């Protein structure tokens, strides 16, 4: 169809919010985002799964009788029972506790040292930092073009040419295993992809007339990049970030599984699987089964959410 379909304007009462321009904008954005999610079945299912893990992770201490380190020598490698609802691992530690405390590290806290942590999960920080660097690189590269673009793109190409698993191995081999290093690894891995996405969006948006208008006003490149261009790239960036958080969780699991993740005895999903793997063929699969399911469900949930959002925003356009 070559006919332009004008989108129906929202009902007039959408304007009756009270408050400043900014809060109104944010509220409007939030409510729009939320109705967006609910409009898509896929996204709703995804949101439910993700919310489940977030809630469980936040309230972990209240949801279990055991700490993740408590060992029950009487019943190692036990199956689910009334005492240990998901069973125990080879040291008799409660799997449910380890599972939900593991979720904490992924989604809620970033352990800096043994006793000090900052809020925001390891996976989230990995994506956030990559997002900051990648967005800046992408904006600069796309907006300025010419040799800056060429330089940045060649560097990113080189980064992307390195197999990701190799980056992990190299980083972990030279830096060692810790939450911070996991964040560093994920930042390095995530940055090129985000930069490329933002660059392509920038290349598109910078041809728009409102950008030309800003240029003819003599606005500074910083203003144009961050005020005129970036806000209009947010949709794809948000969807992409969601996928990336999913991927970061995937990657954390992989690192843990390879023994490159959180140092033991931290409850780390990946290393739980790796430890439990030794006992599968001996008939006690639980220790590796549960964390596998946990990672799988969380990543699938994030992907469903992102997919649903993307479909919905395309329909909206």
């Amino acid at each position, binding site marked *: *169809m*070559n*006919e*332009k*379909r*004008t*989108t*129906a*304007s*929202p009902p007039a009462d959408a*304007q009756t919010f009270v408050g400043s*321009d900014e809060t109104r904008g944010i509220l409007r954005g939030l409510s729009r985002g939320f109705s967006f999610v609910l409009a898509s079945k896929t996204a709703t299912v995804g949101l439910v799964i993700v919310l489940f893990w977030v809630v469980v992770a936040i309230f972990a201490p209240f949801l279990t009788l055991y700490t993740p380190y408590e060992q029950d020598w009487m019943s190692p490698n036990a199956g689910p029972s009334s005492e240990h609802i998901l069973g125990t691992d080879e040291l008799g530690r409660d799997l449910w506790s380890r599972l939900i405390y593991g979720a904490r590290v992924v989604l809620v806290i970033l352990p800096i040292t043994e006793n000090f942590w900052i809020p925001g999960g390891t996976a989230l920080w990995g994506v956030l930092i990559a997002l900051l660097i990648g967005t800046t690189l992408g904006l600069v590269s796309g907006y300025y073009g010419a040799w800056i673009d060429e330089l940045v793109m060649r560097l990113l190409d080189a980064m992307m040419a390195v197999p990701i698993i190799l980056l992990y191995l190299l980083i972990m081999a030279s830096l060692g295993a810790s939450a911070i290093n996991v964040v560093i690894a994920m930042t390095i891995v995530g940055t090129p992809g985000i930069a490329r996405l933002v660059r392509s969006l920038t290349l598109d948006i910078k041809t*728009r*007339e*409102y950008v*030309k*208008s800003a*240029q*003819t*006003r*003599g*606005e500074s490149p910083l203003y144009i990049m961050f005020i*005129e261009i970036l*806000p*209009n790239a*947010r949709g794809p960036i948000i969807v992409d970030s969601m996928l990336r958080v999913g991927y970061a969780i995937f990657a954390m699991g992989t690192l843990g599984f390879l023994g490159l993740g959180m140092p033991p005895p931290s409850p780390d999903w990946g290393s739980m699987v790796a430890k439990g793997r030794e006992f599968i063929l001996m008939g006690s699969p639980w220790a590796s089964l549960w964390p596998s399911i946990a990672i799988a469900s969380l990543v699938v949930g994030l992907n469903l959410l992102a997919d649903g959002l993307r479909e919905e925003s395309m329909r909206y356009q």
Partner: protein
Amino acid sequence: MIHTHENSDQPVIEVIDLGIAYETRSGDVEAVRGVSFSVKPGQTLGLVGESGCGKSTIAFGIVNFLGANGKITGGSIRFQGNELISRSDAELKRLRGNRIAMVYQDPMQALNPSVRIGDQLSEVLTCHTDMTGKEAWERSIAMLERVYMPDPADIMNRYTHQLSGGQQQRVVIAMAMLNNPALLIMDEPTTALDVTVEAAVLDLIEELKDEFQTANIFITHNLGVVARVSDFLCVMYAGEMVETGTAEDIFKRPRHPYTMGLLASVPRLGESKTDSILQPIRGRVPPPAARPRDACVFAPRCDYATDECREDRPSLIPMGTDHRARCIYAREIESRQRTRRRTEDKNLVQDVGERQLDQEELLRIDNLKVYYRQESNSVVSILGLGEKSYVRAVDDVSVRLSMGHTLGIVGESGCGKSTLVKGLIGLEPVTDGSLEFMGIDIQHTVSQRESQLIKEMQMVFQNPDSTLNPSYAVGRQIARPIRRFKTVPRKQVRNEVIRLLKAVRLGEAYYDRLPRQLSGGEKQRVGIARALASRPDLIICDEPVSALDVSVQAAVINLLLEIQQTFGSSMIFIAHDLSVVRFFSDDIAVMYLGQVVEIGPAESIYDPPYHPYTEALLSAVPIPDPEAEQKVLRLSGTIPSALNPPAGCRFHTRCPRRSEMLPHGGKICEEQIPPWQSGGRGHRILCHIPIEKLSTIDPVVHNSA
């Protein structure tokens, strides 16, 4: 099996009371209703209307290709006497591409990028007939020849991207004609083309229709084009057919207020702001879901509407043999098809001559050159070696603009008009030449200019959908230049924005709206307000109305005129539509391939002596008057590359006049750069042909009036 009647009195296609709807989440939305027409062999029916009125939907409804959520809700479509609705897909497939063929708006998109042209053509034959591949190939070559494609055998082996836009459209037309269809549906076939190319394609369509006796349905929003090609017209508005009749009747005696409004809102070629007024239709086309079901759909925008109009849906009222209009007052209201003569309020816009303007020069451009480096991907150029090639986008251009005047710049795509403006406003570095604004040298790019200088030059852009930043409310976007240039004290910014909104006929209510809540015309007004915010001396309008619907165009043009009057701004007005430029400008420069070829007062451009290129442009302009007599002068070939422009006169490769008007077939044009010749009153032509000879040429248009 569908029988073919080759009886020329029988309509090929007969559509009766057609209704089409789209399924959406909130229920069915009616896109088209109550459409009836018929087309006989050798006739063209023009379906005309603004965007969103359901023209294309009808076209795809006829071939039942409405997409997953479209469906025909009622009526009948009879093709060669047989009902098409509820026919099986297999039967329709046999008709499509065989008896019914289509031509589309964007030929680049309509052709497969990775299949050779020859394969795309010949498969139409091999799949509908039992022709062998070789025969089909030969036939395809013959058809390409028929559509005047140069070197057809070679074209067959090429890919889409290797052809120019005009050539691509010829391929699509050839593809449609291969099976000698009974019905040819054309959906905006020339909209994406330049005006001279458009004229040639329209000629071709006309010729083929006569030769093959096809019944044509021609869909367009362009009144001029439809006047040129159609025998009968259907005027569509908001999914309804509001008027139908012969082209002559409708252009001469429109009976529906919407048709009248449309005709009154476009300037005729040659009309200017000093002698006529454009009359816009207020409001906008309602979206399908918001259309009144049991009332006249046009009532909300109609000046004649009464309560009666809002009570019931009017039926088509016959006015003559073929002429019908869907308006209860069709017989009573006076026919008012023309733009109004400016008599009573002559004081609003005065002729430049009478205006005793202060003739101070505002802008002076001398020998301006803007070259781009051609980015080459070769290895040599990566290493920074090898010859650098330049696109000579603007090459040796000199123009002047006086205070309070409007300079129009016309030319087809790629002629350098946009680059000229970019150089002027400082978005593109100037390669050579001088630029003076109010006596100040402005060679620098915008980042090196004083903000006092920047604020004096602002732009109005072309595309309403991208002129505003979708992320911010209207008020904030207008306020930004005010804050930046400190036009008013901080506390008064909001009031100033509201004042500007009012100046562009939008109220305070628009302050907090987001761009997506506005219509195209409203966005364009906000764009104008934003340009005005810094109180510039010079406003540059880059095709400000060409992306707007016809009825809205007029309102924006009027607004710009009014602003110029009140604020006394000078303007540069870029457009490819010669009627609009003529209407709006005091002086006009015609550009071709990076150079100005003719420049002078507006009226002098539209009468002899012409530069041969101007003459060709003027004779290509579609005039919304079927009776206007227009000279047929067509350009051959395609526009040369600006990387390596022709020597001598840049236009010599396509000039239709040089061989007849110059000795030795115009050999001089290939060798020497032509001189500027003066035609008096500042009118100058860049041509070797003596101006006396050029003056003897007939005017391009004889207006019927």
